């Protein structure tokens, strides 16, 4: 066993003070210690993006980050974007446009898409495909994922224009 250290994480607005070995991977902290199971473990080798969370305004793969590196960080997971009775525009759009089949990649897809739309609010299809290249889906063939993100972007832009 390695020496444990005091680590503070803000996840979805809630502060968590934990005692953990620095080698613990952030995805394990989130899922097993904090019970935040939206981010999934797919490949565990930084390829698939199922574990994508937002950390300090960046999309990161939580399987390729030691919890010690995240000490002091602000993290948002799919749970922080929407709730079952108050879905985020991206969640509604994925449902509407059939942007998922088995759903395993979906939390990572939506969390990544959320950051992409912060950076490029009105993306082209090519920008969506390039910006989502770190997330793999084995079911949909991506067509409907791209469609869902473009539709959510249009909805969010229309809402902003109305405000």
């Amino acid at each position, binding site marked *: *066993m*390695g*020496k444990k*250290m005091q680590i503070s994480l803000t996840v979805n607005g809630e502060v968590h003070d934990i005692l953990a*070995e*620095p*080698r613990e*991977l952030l995805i394990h902290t989130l899922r097993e210690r904090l019970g935040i199971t939206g981010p999934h473990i797919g490949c*565990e*080798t*930084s*390829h698939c*993006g199922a574990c*994508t969370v937002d950390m300090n305004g*960046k*999309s*990161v*793969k939580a*399987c*390729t*980050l*030691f919890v*010690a*590196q995240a*000490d002091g960080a602000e993290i948002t997971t799919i749970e922080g974007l929407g709730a079952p009775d108050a879905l985020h525009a991206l969640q509604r759009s994925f449902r509407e446009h059939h942007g998922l089949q088995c759903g395993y990649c979906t939390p990572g897809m939506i969390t*990544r898409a959320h950051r*992409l739309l912060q950076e490029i609010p009105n993306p082209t299809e090519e920008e969506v495909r*390039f*910006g*989502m*290249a*770190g997330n793999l889906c084995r079911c949909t063939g991506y067509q409907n994922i791209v469609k869902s993100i473009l539709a959510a972007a249009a909805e969010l832009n229309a809402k902003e224009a109305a405000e």
Partner: protein
Amino acid sequence: MIPSAFEYHRPGDLASAIGILTEYGDEARVIAGGHSLIPMMKLRMAQIGHLVDLQNLDELKGIRVTGSAITIGALVTQAELIAHDGLATAAPILREAALQIADPQVRYMGTVGGNVANGDPGNDMPGLMQCLNARFTLVGPDGSRDVAARDFYHSAYMTERSDDEILTQITFAPPAGGFAYEKQKRKIGDYATAAAAVQLTKSGGTVAGASIAMTNLSDTPVWSEAAGAALVGSTCGAEAVMQSVAAMLGDIDPQQDNRGPIDFKRHVAGVILARAIARAWSRA
């Protein structure tokens, strides 16, 4: 995939970081974005007693562009590099190359300093920095020294940097003329089967200067003086390009792996280099 245990350090300045490296010697390793090191640690191919996280070292951050020199701090991420418009104007080859590295999530974390310091023959920035004739600044307990990118790489993962030194920044003169970074990879996120960095200058319809380096075709990046010289004075026609490719093929030493057999890699190297030269010339 749990790595072996380590003690974690997050120093607040460069002097403290070097102090930790000096204290623990080869038991200590620095980590920046970690997207090369953490996978190796998870596979237990790297076991590290003391991990020194550089994230709070503000002196290693930032991009400075002047008329005579471009300086990139070691902790600048690929995403920050891509987003920097001043850099994209002064040295557009960097953005073109960085957009072909890994995927968005990895580019938010992966740093330019880590990419050049790691010594992985698959990393894209080492060849590019050789093409640009960049210098790397290394700071250790005995002070600071600059090493040319073209002298930095000894063999795979073996570089001029010693264990108690930290690569702090990369400096090069703003490149002139046309440029291209051309990369063949099996899929998004893959390392290159072959990649070429080319800078060409043009004068009176002929090539005035050429700098050419290739990636992942040897155990170090390959800057080929002969491949550049083959183009100088020519109109960059088919014959000159063929001679440049032949010169490069004489300098590379690819090995068979899951990206293909040696003959295939040599073929791809030629195709990629010819494309890169053509695109650089069209922009010169």
